[in-house]
């Protein structure tokens, strides 16, 4: 394996793996010149994506999403709370993103990942600004009781494009969510209804399990900009070498929800941004299809 380049004698002594670790940029640029990436993908293609709904049976809604090796497990648990004075008719959603040590060798119990709070905030902002959930649907008794939905997303394997996979699993979990049936008992407290219809003295507040109506579901695609190349859905190796990221979030009708470019060495000219948005548009169609298939697969059971 003699690679004829400036690193000269060194490259002929080592295996491809070693060259990839020592001179990663050179390794990648060789591939990019042929419009391909080391894992064989064309530049604009995302990795294989799967969604499995209902992964956690003890939660009210859950989903496991995998994009390539990046794996995210999202689950929603509902609790009853008193709504705030400013919005007595609305419930609340609390989104939290965790990166446990299992997901990556750089995370250890005493050394949490830097990406975790960033992605957590990004997710909260994206879901609330997309208008996907109508908080009024989470209200139970005006001014007295409303639902607090705790959405927790755990990264089980971190291999790049963390935000994309996390958003996908969060959206799928909310899609799968079934709000428990509850009724108001004599003490004015909300209790979970019995499965078999329940006693009549309790006033059913939420007759049967229902799903949320989700409007404009957000989907995202992260791209890396390097010189003139745009790489869609980066792996963690690609993210580490070429640091300029752009994340585009669109809803199912291709409306732009957010565009995120946190600095980076490469400037994003209008043409690059437009290319990213076009790639995202295509990706949204793919993801919508995958989510629908996962959902219909569940209904058969």
């Amino acid at each position, binding site marked *: 394996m003699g690679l004829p380049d*400036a*690193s*000269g*004698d*060194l490259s002929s*002594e*080592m*295996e491809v*793996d*070693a060259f*990839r*670790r*020592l*001179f990663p940029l050179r390794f990648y640029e060789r591939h990019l010149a042929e419009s391909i990436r080391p894992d064989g993908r064309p530049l604009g293609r995302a990795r294989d994506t799967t969604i499995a709904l209902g992964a956690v049976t003890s939660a009210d809604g859950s989903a496991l999403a995998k994009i390539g090796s990046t794996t995210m497990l999202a689950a929603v648990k509902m609790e009853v709370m008193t709504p705030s004075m400013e919005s007595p008719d609305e419930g609340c959603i609390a989104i939290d993103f965790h990166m446990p040590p299992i997901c990556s*060798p750089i995370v250890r119990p005493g050394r949490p990942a830097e990406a975790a709070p960033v992605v957590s905030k990004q997710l909260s902002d994206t879901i609330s600004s997309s208008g996907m959930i109508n908080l009024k649907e989470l209200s139970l008794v005006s001014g007295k009781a409303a639902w607090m939905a705790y959405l927790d997303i755990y990264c089980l394997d971190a291999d790049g494009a963390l935000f994309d996979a996390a958003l996908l699993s969060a959206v799928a979990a909310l899609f799968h969510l079934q709000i428990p049936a509850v009724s108001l008992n004599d003490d004015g407290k909300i209790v979970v209804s019995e499965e078999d219809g329940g006693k009549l003295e309790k006033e059913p507040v939420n007759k049967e399990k229902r799903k949320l109506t989700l409007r404009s579901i957000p989907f995202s695609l992260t791209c890396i900009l390097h010189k003139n190349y745009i790489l869609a859905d980066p792996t963690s190796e690609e993210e580490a070498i070429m640091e300029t990221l752009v994340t585009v979030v669109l809803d199912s009708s291709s409306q732009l929800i957010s565009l995120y470019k946190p600095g980076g060495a490469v400037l994003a000219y209008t043409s690059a941004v437009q290319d990213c948005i076009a790639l995202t548009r295509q990706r949204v169609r793919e993801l919508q299809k995958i989510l629908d298939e996962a959902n219909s697969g569940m209904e058969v059971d």
Partner: protein
Amino acid sequence: MKEEGEREVVTPGEVLGKASDVRAGRGAYLAPHNNLVYASLTGFRRALSPSPDSPDQRPTVEITDHKAHGAVPEPGSIVIARVTKVMAKMASADIMCVGPKSVREKFSGIIRQQDVRATEIDKVDMHLSFRPGDIVKAIVLSLGDARAYYLSTAKNELGVVSAESTAGATMVPISWTEMQCPLTAQIEHRKVAKIGG
């Protein structure tokens, strides 16, 4: 030693044979309390016949690891490392390859002032020998302390093999202490490895 191929998969704790029949090789161990040889790895079992003139005629059984393990540095191995920090008396480097193989997880190495070169070791200026980002070829002196392996570049063929100039181009070695940037023609000081023997 001649090999006999046997493609049976074994898991840790499985009996491979009696101590009187086989010898424990890599991935196997002898349990003293009952004289049985057990496997200690998951992988394919292989029996190696002993050479005809060795006194112990038992075949050696070993387990080939199904996961190719990354290499681990040992005293005397030649490693390739990337310099991370340069201080007054030593430089830190991350060991990336042992021989031609890359490692799985990064190992930390230190090159102390007295191990940079073979002559005039107390007059060494660390900043004129290495800079962060340089790729160096070194030999492992010892397992070192809890934090890092001790490395040495005190031979002609050891030292900086690849470095970037301040302008960002890969420099060309001129002598054993200097490298030149092809873009700006500026000369920078390093402890350069002699390539080509």
